[in-house]
């Protein structure tokens, strides 16, 4: 349990480390205490970062980049979902710039020649992972967007 104290910032440990160590010694160890220590470490880091302008700016920069990566991942999966429903190649264009192209392969076109009974389940099977991925990514984006507010409310 004491190993979790290493998660705290060094400046915080110098000031309150001994006190917290005593407190951890006196309390019976358990999942609840471990969770408290982890949340406490997150709050301690939040305070250290928020009190320094440069660190706060760097944190915001990383947060913005994480959001951008997740948005692009959601865009990619959405593009695949849209392209699966169209027989023609799907392009993502802006003016003269072509960003991405999705083409259904000949294997899939062969599937179109088969009867609808065999073709439909093929399409259906492909779509389920897409939708699940999209939901997971949307959840991750919501967590990342809400993280600063959640951390502000803690402690």
């Amino acid at each position, binding site marked *: 349990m004491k190993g979790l104290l290493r998660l705290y910032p060094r400046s915080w440990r110098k000031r309150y480390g001994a006190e917290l160590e005593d407190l951890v010694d006196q309390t019976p160890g358990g999942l609840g205490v471990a969770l408290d220590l982890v949340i406490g470490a997150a709050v301690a880091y939040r*305070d250290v970062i*928020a*009190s320094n*302008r440069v660190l*706060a*700016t*760097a*944190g*915001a*920069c*990383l*947060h*913005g*980049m*994480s*959001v*951008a*990566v997740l948005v*692009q*991942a959601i865009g*990619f*999966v959405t*593009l*695949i979902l849209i*392209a*699966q429903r169209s027989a023609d190649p799907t392009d*993502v264009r802006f003016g003269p*710039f*072509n*960003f*991405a*192209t*999705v*083409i*259904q*392969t000949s*294997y*899939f076109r062969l599937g179109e020649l088969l009867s609808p009974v065999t073709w439909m389940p*093929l399409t259906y099977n*492909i779509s389920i*992972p*897409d939708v699940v*991925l999209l939901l997971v990514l949307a959840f991750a984006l919501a967590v990342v967007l809400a993280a600063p507010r959640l951390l502000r409310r803690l402690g």
Partner: protein
Amino acid sequence: MRRITAAISLVLLLLVATAVAEASLLGLLVVFTSILRLYLVVEIAGHYLQMSSLNVPSFLQVGIANAGTVGSFLLTIASGLGAAAYRYRRWRPVL
């Protein structure tokens, strides 16, 4: 001189952070390629990075052109810079 050094350090840090973010995005695309059974081709400055599953036939061929790669890089860096600028301007000391 110190200002120049600080500015260069800032630019280098920003580039490293963007490169790490783009690498993580590429990692996500590799996972998606496997899960969605894609044949993915990413163009990076005239070089091609191809990904596909060996055992499973791919139903869709996805090509990301140079403009897409550069656009993704610019979007990531702009998001980071935008968020950083907003925080820097609105920062107040914690009482």
